[in-house]
């Protein structure tokens, strides 16, 4: 009975997620005028497959094996289900007859419907197959695709975004460098910081130090301070400089419920 329950719930979840991911991915191609939803890397990878159905399919397939292994082993889908498998397979389905990406991949309606169908199939499959996948394919996914994707996220993407910030002008380069470096220290990846640096730099280039750009800078600094605190970075930095962390700060962390060792 439990399996039937899982299958019914999976169909609903898959349809909802697939619909949202598909529409969001197609809308990304119309950003910044239209608010999209996905990720820069999803956009980059969709472009890397260049509207070729076979490439979209095989790219998704590699991550599908990874997701399968991960859900069999740990019950976790991996973020790739939303970031890579659904968007790329939806694109592959829509483009199988050699249709242009402008009429398929970039169309939110078509992508939402294709995404919902793929979502139902993928989520139901992942949730209902308790048996293990062939180990040789699992090994390829884990030893080839995961390292490649990790390299892309760190250091390749930070470097590309950083260079783009430096090339975009003095202000973007400066703020990108400051926030990028800080983001890598605090969050472990420089990309969010560089993106925010470009935002501030270009915002000031285009409209000066207006109310909007000032608010923006304040919220970005606030964001960095808060996430540093919640990750215990404040205690780490004090200790890295061979200083004693004050007790009130450690108590404050305890009060929020996030204890630092």
């Amino acid at each position, binding site marked *: 009975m439990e399996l039937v329950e899982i299958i019914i719930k999976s169909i*609903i*979840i898959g349809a909802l*997620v697939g*619909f*949202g*991911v598909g*529409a969001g991915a*197609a809308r*990304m191609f*119309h*950003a*910044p*005028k239209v*608010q999209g*939803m*996905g*990720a820069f*890397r999803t*956009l*980059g*990878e969709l472009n*890397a497959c*260049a509207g070729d159905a076979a490439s979209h399919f*095989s790219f998704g397939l590699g991550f599908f094996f990874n997701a399968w292994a991960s859900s069999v*082993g*740990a*019950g*976790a*889908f991996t*973020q790739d289900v*939303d970031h890579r498998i659904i968007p790329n397979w939806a694109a592959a389905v829509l483009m199988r007859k050699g249709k242009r990406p402008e009429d398929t991949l970039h*169309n939110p309606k078509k992508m*939402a419907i294709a995404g919902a169908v793929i979502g139902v199939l993928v*989520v139901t499959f992942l*949730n209902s197959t308790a048996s293990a996948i062939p*180990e040789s*394919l699992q*090994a*390829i996914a884990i*030893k*080839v*695709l995961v*390292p*490649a994707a990790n390299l*892309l996220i760190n250091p390749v993407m930070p470097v*590309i975004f950083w260079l*783009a910030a430096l090339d975009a002008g003095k202000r973007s380069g400066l703020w990108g460098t400051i926030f990028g470096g800080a983001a890598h220290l605090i969050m472990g990846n420089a990309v*969010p910081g560089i993106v925010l640096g*470009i*935002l501030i730099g*270009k*915002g000031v280039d*285009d*409209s000066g130090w207006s109310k*909007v750009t000032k608010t923006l800078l304040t919220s970005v600094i606030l964001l960095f301070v*808060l996430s540093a605190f919640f*990750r215990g970075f404040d205690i780490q930095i004090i200790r890295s400089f061979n200083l004693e962390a004050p007790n009130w700060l450690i108590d404050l962390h305890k009060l*929020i419920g*996030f*204890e630092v060792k």
Partner: protein
Amino acid sequence: MTNQQETTTETLYNKNFWYADWSFPIFVALLSAGIFAGTHMYYQYHIGAFNDVAIVAMLEAGLQGAGYGAAAAFGASFLFARILEGSLVGILDIGGSLQTGIGIGVPALLLGAGITAPLESFVLSLVTGGVLGIVIGYVIIGIRKFTVGQSNSTFGADIMMGAGNASGRFLGPLIVISAASASIPIGIGSIIGAAIFYAWKKPVAGGAILGAMLFGAFFPISLD
């Protein structure tokens, strides 16, 4: 682009449901409902959480009684950062905001506070995720109106789109390098696949994966 075409695109973006600002919260709500319900699946059957093993492990640590602080703080800070970034660049990162924020951070906050109902009931999990998604969607559209909408600046979105596109090109070569480091047969397979795809004027990444898989099936490597 001629003026007439430009006006057609403007109307399409403003009026058409699939492209409009007002429909964005609906898409976020549907996706969030699914992701939150995925966490319900994990809570109930130990399968189906929409996140990476390392992040789900933080929630699992909480379920095992080690405290929800890490998962809640991690999820909440990601959610906050991605909402701000997403509204300004025009792309909401669903990994950080929805999968980690809504799928891990919010459940950890709820469970930490002793509220279990939204995770125990499937229907309630859909409703909770949906409502949170609508709120996030409106916050993003709100910030957009206040910032991008108020000034003539796109805040460098074109630069970021360019960098995003450029980074995708690195994937093909990275897969070949990674395959060549895994084992000799898999490396050879991915080189052949990549070369064939390049000659066919198809993206290199797809060929490299297929080649690696084909050779990996005949010359398996162990996971240890």
